[in-house]
């Protein structure tokens, strides 16, 4: 097998955006080695992309970063909005040089964050008659037993989470 040394960054000009969740973008970049050596600092500018249907909710945000930085999590306030991310650098004479800019896609199709205040099911006519949290009738009971035995139904082991897949650490 080969040596597992891999480059920290690439000698390239690239800016990437990955939505982490509706309110956070992960932005990372590669810049040419010669630029990184010449840069006093990097500038990352996050600007809401304005259209008629998605007017900007907030002004541009400008972040000053050290010249050896390679990535950054950026908070955004509107998941339905796309953003222009611009990366530039400042030389030792304080001259600004734009490197490149990329437009993000909107992180979410619509709606806001995951929460319990959205019904799982409603029809327009029934909307007010259904439990807004669960979408169920109040009489519905997820913990009721069909035949009442003496065994307690819902006992748990604290700290154990069954929601993960076959845990790779299971052999330890």
């Amino acid at each position, binding site marked *: *097998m*080969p040596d*597992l040394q*891999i480059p920290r*960054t*690439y000698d*390239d000009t*690239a800016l*990437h955006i*990955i*939505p*982490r*969740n*509706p309110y956070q973008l*992960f932005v*990372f970049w590669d810049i040419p080695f010669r630029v990184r050596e010449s840069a006093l600092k990097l500038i990352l500018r996050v600007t809401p992309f304005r259209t008629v249907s998605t007017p900007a909710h907030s002004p541009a945000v400008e972040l000053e970063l050290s010249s050896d930085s390679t990535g950054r999590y950026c908070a955004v306030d509107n998941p339905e909005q796309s953003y222009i991310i611009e990366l530039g650098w400042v030389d030792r004479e304080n001259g600004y040089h734009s490197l490149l800019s990329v437009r993000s*896609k909107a*992180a*979410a*199709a*619509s*709606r*806001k964050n*995951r929460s319990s205040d*959205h*019904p*799982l*099911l*409603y*029809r327009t006519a029934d909307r007010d008659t*259904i439990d807004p949290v*669960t979408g*169920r009738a109040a*009489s*519905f*009971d*997820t913990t*009721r*037993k*069909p035949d009442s*035995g003496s*065994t*307690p*139904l819902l*006992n*748990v*082991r*604290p*700290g*154990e989470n*069954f*929601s*993960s*897949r*076959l845990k*790779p*650490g*299971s*052999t*330890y």
Partner: protein
Amino acid sequence: MMNQPKDGPATPHRGYLALILHAHLPFVRHPEVTYMMEENWLFEAITETYLPLLMLLNNLRDDTISLRLTMSLTPTLCSMLSDDLLMERYRRHLDRQIELAEKETGRTARQKDFHRTALMYMNRFTGERYLFDRLLDGNILKGFASFQEAGMLEIITCGATHGYLPTMQHNPNAVYAQLAVAAESYHALFNRPPTGIWLPECGYYPGLEKLLERTGFRYFFTETHGLVFAEPPPQYGVYAPVYCNGTSVAAFARDPDSSRAVWSAKEGYPGDPAYRDFYRDIGFDLDIDYIQPYIDPIGIRVNTGIKYHRITGTTRKKKPYDHEAALRVAVEHAGNFMFNREQQVQYLASIMDRPPVIVAPYDAELFGHWWYEGPDWLNFLIRKITFEQSRITLITPSDYLDRFPENQVCTPSFSSWGEGGYSDVWLNENNDWIYRHLHHMEEKMVASARTTHPSDELTRRTLNQMARELMLAESSDWAFIMKTGTMVNYAIRRTKEHIANFLRLHDDLQKNRIDDNFLSLLESHNNIFPDMDYSVYAKNLFQY
């Protein structure tokens, strides 16, 4: 008109339950050593989950119980289950388990509480060896395929190497390759195209449906909020599929109630004190001299699969396991699950003008591996649904779409089934370093596939191996392990190894100095997808 089933009006106040089992393990194969602890992930899952599920299906078929169950078998898992080296190693692993179980029946002969359990393991392991060797001829996939042919099982696929697609969306070719290679691999194994796909980690982003349609998939699943936050909001919430805007691809969403009953650490069935405790294993409990032949050869203690205690409670002091008592609880839990689904269906059907479908997906490895009695619970549930009620019918997504071909059109929301509901598990301070390399590799792969026109076999093999190394690096498992903090070194090593392999192959290709020995070594070690065709990365996909 939209709500009438294709084959006639639906019976009022009835509905459907779609049970989905997602079987997945990352590709772990180390021919360079005689023992690799991480290969035990597969061996444990075969003994504790896949063979018990096949036994369950076999028993149901013998009892002429009709059922429709959906199971995703990921391409990485299928590759390992088809691999001669790994299956030979599994055979030896099972032999060792049987040998240990035999010794345990002797060791516990005077310990009444434990002896019955030791006999249980002995019987189970020998039965599994018979199933594996004699009935399946070492081919577990053949077993699952036979139940698909018999109409009991709908097998679906997953991303080729379980790559988490939302973090790849910048490069549609990379996403498309994950889907297309999965579909081709499925076709080669099961002699038919896959109807549906389990998106790795249930990760969906708007626009993915266009690539799913292009690769021929009819449906996929989202986490609950994928549909709850869809635009426009679905009329039936998560209790009917929707067609994704502009495509004929349907999205089914997970029902939170049926999920919680099984998954939840606080409310879930698997935490019952009568059930077998996962963590107390004789690999850790018994004297090292006694257990040495059955653990890591260098002396690291590992699980042996033989466990004698029940969960008991929060105390560290555990009581002896009683399998019969545990089965009685599993019967009760199956009844509870069915009862609550009946209530749910009755309520939902009363406010819907079509029968609801409750989608209940679980990791297959929960059943038997983590929750030892899980396959028994499933067995009891299926039998109860068959004989003890008439409100719920088991169904697969394909069947539902056949019965209800007209559905609302929506755009689901970005979602996953990871903690927080989005990409936080696979993109955080512990693992975000990998994406620089993955994006770089994906771009180089697409460019190489488009611009290289191999005139010789060596170049073509290099491009194909580059595609394998890229896909193996993309596995969501490595980022997941880096986040969870267990076995991190292995995940980092695997990721770096595939990155380094790819970069060297790419560099060799660019400089026209391909090292046949190095290439052959990689082909023999990382031999997933023998029919890999690099040109899958060269497609001119639509822009969206």
